[in-house]
């Protein structure tokens, strides 16, 4: 089953992938599929169990009949909130991946960090694994290839670059991207209503800190909101 739908002025084509799982592809690129997904998620619409946003589309998992769900979605009024700017402290630690990053960029670490701090990075997507953040806007010169086989990353809140993206691994996990730094504040807040404070489209501005401030901030157990207050 497939068709098209106008969700609060945003035209999407949809198709049922399998019973209860429907994929929506917005016709326009703005707002992004992930942004529409986020707004629908926040509305807690009856019959919608999960919303998953990716670059090209979003998927709704529903326990309601598809016709009923489509009718319901046709009637919603999406409020798309303004994006915010967040500051994040970053310690560019001595990770093993710096070797490859320096080699592929042809830059020294200092030059790379300088250019990185000037990048205009925006949250493009969330998810995949808990608290993973995809950031777009990484300068072409800063891009480094993803690893063929993921390597275990033991760090929490690790800043990484992979392909066209920068990203944050909120939890230790196998990582295919190159780790270049650490944030001394937990990104994932499982007790909060939104487990990640950032919204799709929000800008992240990194501020470099040294090892001493990194350790100091880490011991204080701040939240992202505290740091930005």
């Amino acid at each position: 089953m497939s068709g098209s739908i106008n969700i609060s002025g945003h035209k999407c084509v949809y198709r049922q992938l399998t019973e209860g799982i429907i994929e929506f592809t917005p016709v326009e690129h703005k707002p992004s599929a992930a942004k529409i997904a986020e707004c629908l998620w926040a509305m807690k619409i009856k019959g919608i169990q999960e919303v998953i946003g990716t670059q090209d589309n979003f998927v709704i998992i529903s326990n309601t009949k598809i016709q009923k769900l489509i009718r319901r979605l046709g009637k919603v009024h999406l409020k798309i909130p303004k994006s915010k700017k967040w500051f994040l402290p970053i310690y560019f630690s001595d990770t093993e991946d710096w070797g490859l990053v320096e080699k592929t960029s042809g830059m020294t670490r200092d030059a790379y960090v300088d250019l990185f701090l000037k990048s205009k990075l925006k949250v493009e997507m969330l998810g995949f694994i808990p608290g993973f953040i995809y950031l777009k806007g990484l300068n072409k010169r800063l891009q480094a290839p993803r690893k063929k086989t993921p390597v275990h990353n033991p760090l929490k809140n690790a800043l990484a670059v992979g392909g066209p993206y920068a990203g944050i691994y909120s939890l230790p996990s196998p990582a295919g991207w190159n780790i270049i730094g650490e944030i001394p504040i937990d990104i994932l807040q499982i007790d909060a209503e939104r487990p990640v404070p950032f919204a799709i489209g929000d800008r992240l501005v990194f501020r470099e800190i040294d090892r001493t401030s990194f350790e100091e901030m880490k011991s204080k157990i701040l939240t992202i909101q505290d740091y930005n207050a």
Partner: protein
Amino acid sequence: MRSGIHSSIQDGGRTGMAFYGIPRAGFMDAQSAAIANVLVGNKKKGACIEMINLGMEVLFLDSATIAITGADMQAHVDGQSCPMYETIEILAGSRIKFSSSRSGMISYLAVRGKWMLPSVMDSLSTYTYAQMGGFEGRLLKKGDIINVASKLDNGLSMKWESRPNYDAISMIEMHKGPEWAMLSNVHDGFKIQVRKSPMGNRMGVQLLADGLQIHVPDDFRSQAVVPGMVQCTPSGELIVILQDGQTTGGYPRIGMIKAKELALFNQIKVGQKFIIKLKS
């Protein structure tokens, strides 16, 4: 007293958080868990102890009403063989010992009453990757004490002919996935013999198969995935996303195993040959 290999507290799982990459988690075999819960008078999606492959040893500090379902782990209470699929009264000070599974992979121990544990996002399911839910967000280990506030009810038992026989599972039905058409040389009566690789956990399992060929376009990007989705890697291996699985994935989604069938699929032992058949 002894923890087994992978024993954790699970329930019906947490919903609504896939947007943030937090999977539903929950029972690997929701049918067996529901039966165990019904036998002790709990809600179908209530918390149980889930044991995979090898069971644990439990000392009951208080009397309790329990039920065991799923894989047969040869449970013994104080040395006496203990029946499955029926309500059992346990006396304070009794020990129940589970061994390795004879048939199936996953066993459930339900205990009547309310499990006194903090819920995370409205669920008691353990999700070890993010250390959330269940008992301190981790697998159970020797010495853990779980408090269940008991209540009274009458005993029940399930008819023999209704109980599942996991050794008899020889076929799993799969529906076409969104990227089914990327496979070469397949047709509507598609069937393939596979076995589970030992590299599996609650996040996903790899299936060893022969002869699958897939053409993946260069611009294929990450897509949403849910438990039961069957991905095909460029080298023709199949990966089934399970209860603790990631919420997006970069391999084509060639099939989908629905929830009821997935419960049976999860009971199939590593190495056992079985057929995946396309549902027409």
